[in-house]
């Protein structure tokens, strides 16, 4: 085990990388996750967007539309000229600006009777938050109702059309909040686990690739290869040193998460905590395998730093650590399934959302975590193969 001891020693001498990546990024993950609060309200209430309506028509239908838009909203008054309207949205003075054009009522009724398109509303939606976009959807739905009632009864007055549309769109879905005795994990802990994937991967990969760099120098390899150490044993011992380095990183980050977020004290099932912790281990081992690969490729210190960070960021993005995968496109979700952290994060989210950890769920999550371990194994095998090819090339 002399090569193992040597490899561990020279990796450990690059402890500054532990400080930079493991501790700094680990702290970032803790602080970032600590800022995320789970919903605490006891009653449900609709979010009130800030809405400005400019009615240039002054008709009965436009008044009904204005009333509908301002219902459950905070009204904001803006001047009726282009710059002021755009400025209101840009500065987030209003989440949504609705301009009802002149001749709206007449145009809508005529269009409904003839089957033509309804008059277009001019709208400005704030890019900050989704409130404006949601309001836009509601307004469009209301205009569709107006159009529908106008087209079904050609004799109906504007008053009747408005009343019918308001009644149709006025129904609200009853919402009730209730709490469940859950064995799941806190949102903070799960967010930490997802964020920590970047720290685990990047730390392991860079710590190993940079730490082992001197073992790759030509003269050093020459000196080691002429020694009485079998090449298989040499590779295995270096590999073991990589695993040990990643275990240390995993232990630091996983322990920090358990100590800060105390998931077991919060009533989470030990099985769900185990899934998270083993998921983190899988990611750390992927980092170790990737660092081993970079080392076999002879990556310089700057290349190892760059590659470790870029791949770590990309993989954690695809795992849903930065943006929930539920709100990204289908293509991204499909691509994410072919990235290594996805499976670990998916398993963590599944156990965190389940009210109870059944054996079936535990097995499924363990299987997903197992996929993460397989990723590590595959990358390590590729690294070993590359190392052998390069060794043969040098010997040819």
């Amino acid at each position: 085990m002399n090569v193992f001891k040597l490899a561990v020693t020279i990796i450990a001498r690059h402890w500054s990388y532990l400080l930079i990546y493991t501790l700094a990024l680990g702290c970032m993950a803790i602080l970032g996750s600590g800022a995320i609060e789970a919903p605490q309200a006891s009653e449900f209430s609709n979010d009130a967007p800030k809405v400005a309506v400019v009615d240039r028509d002054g008709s009965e239908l436009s008044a009904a539309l204005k009333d509908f838009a301002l219902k459950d909203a905070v009204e904001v008054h803006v001047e009726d000229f282009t710059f002021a309207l755009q400025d209101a949205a840009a500065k987030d003075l209003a989440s949504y600006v609705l301009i009802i054009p002149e001749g709206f009522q007449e145009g809508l009724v005529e269009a409904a009777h003839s089957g033509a398109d309804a008059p277009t509303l001019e709208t400005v939606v704030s890019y900050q938050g989704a409130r404006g976009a949601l309001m836009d959807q509601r307004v469009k739905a209301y205009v569709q109702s107006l159009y529908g009632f106008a087209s079904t009864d050609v004799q109906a007055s504007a008053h009747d059309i408005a009343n019918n549309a308001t009644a149709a769109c006025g129904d609200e879905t009853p919402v009730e909040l209730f709490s469940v005795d859950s064995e799941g994990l806190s949102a903070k802990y799960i967010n930490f686990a997802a964020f920590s994937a970047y720290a685990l991967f990047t730390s392991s990969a860079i710590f190993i690739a940079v730490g082992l760099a001197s073992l790759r120098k030509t003269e050093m390899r020459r000196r080691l290869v002429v020694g009485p150490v079998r090449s298989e044993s040499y590779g295995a011992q270096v590999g073991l040193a990589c695993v040990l380095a990643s275990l240390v990183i995993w232990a630091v980050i996983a322990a920090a998460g358990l100590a800060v977020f105390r998931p077991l004290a919060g009533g989470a099932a030990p099985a769900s905590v185990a899934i998270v912790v083993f998921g983190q281990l899988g990611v750390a081992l992927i980092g170790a395998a990737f660092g081993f690969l970079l080392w076999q490729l002879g990556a310089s210190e700057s290349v190892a730093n760059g590659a470790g960070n870029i791949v770590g960021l990309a993989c954690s993005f695809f795992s849903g650590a930065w943006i929930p995968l539920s709100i990204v496109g289908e293509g991204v979700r499909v691509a994410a399934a072919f990235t290594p952290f996805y499976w670990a994060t998916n398993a963590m989210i599944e156990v965190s959302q389940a009210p109870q950890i059944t054996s079936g769920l535990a097995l499924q999550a363990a299987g997903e975590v197992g996929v993460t371990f397989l990723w590590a194994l595959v990358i390590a095998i590729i690294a070993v193969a590359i190392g052998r090819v390069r060794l043969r090339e040098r010997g040819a």
Partner: protein
Amino acid sequence: MKENESANSVVSVRSLVKRYGDILALDHFNLEIGKGEIFGLLGPNGCGKTTAINCMLQLLAYDKGDIELFGEAMKPTRYDLKRRIGVVPQQVAVFDELTVFENIDCFCALYVSDKTRRRELVEEAIEFVGLEDYRKMRPKKLSGGLLRRLNIACGIAHKPELIFFDEPTVAVDPQSRNAILDGIVRLRDEGATVVYTSHYMEEVEQICSRIMIMDGGKILALGTADELKRGIAVGEKIVIELPGAVEARGCAAAQTVGALPHVLSCEFANGELHAACEASERNLLDVLGALKSSRVAVGRVYSEPPTLNDVFLEITGRELRD
């Protein structure tokens, strides 16, 4: 090859051929090194010295030939033979992350697993190369000469029977160079066999019991330093200062000396007359007599035997350091 010669050989290489594509790096290379020898491989850069060593150490695959170390066929998996070998590479190969002691210990640990024994060996190696005061220092704090000494200590700490030194004195100050050369002789005295490659002729001549001169992957000459020098026509080199001699007069004097029967060549350059003579007891008297009869004023005169560079020059027609 004589049978008894092969039986005593620590290194035996027969008809070794190594090609790099179309380039023939070793052309039917043969080598026999006996126990307790310091064997010098001499030749310009790219002559095949390092390739030959790499083949012997199984760091390079070769196209043809046989290599035996300690009387047994050397293969990449002969770890028992590798255990008896030490290598001091041309480039300093030590870990910047480790101290002097740790560096020597980690390489020694590849060969010796017993901790107590290893500690003794490491201490001996440190003492051998004179790094006692630098035990806890990292390599980056050592001078070039001390680094070279550390490089040597890492290769010899496990007390190998056969040691390959590949240009160990490149870029080393004279004091460290002498210490290194003395150390190699001491290793030989302690029973090790040494293969020493260099392009510094003086060093090779100083410590090697036999010398092989190589060029273009071929063996050009083999023997002791004296045997090699005796094998060439030049037996003595005479240098005479001609104070105040102008170019024309110096060239005329060179012509006069060059016409002497034992003088092989004579040139005038930088106010000095350089005469290469065959081995003869009267060379100096004849040359000075010729200059006196030509009424040429003579300054300092000195005579020296031929060097290995002269051997190389005569065999290849070019300087060793070209």
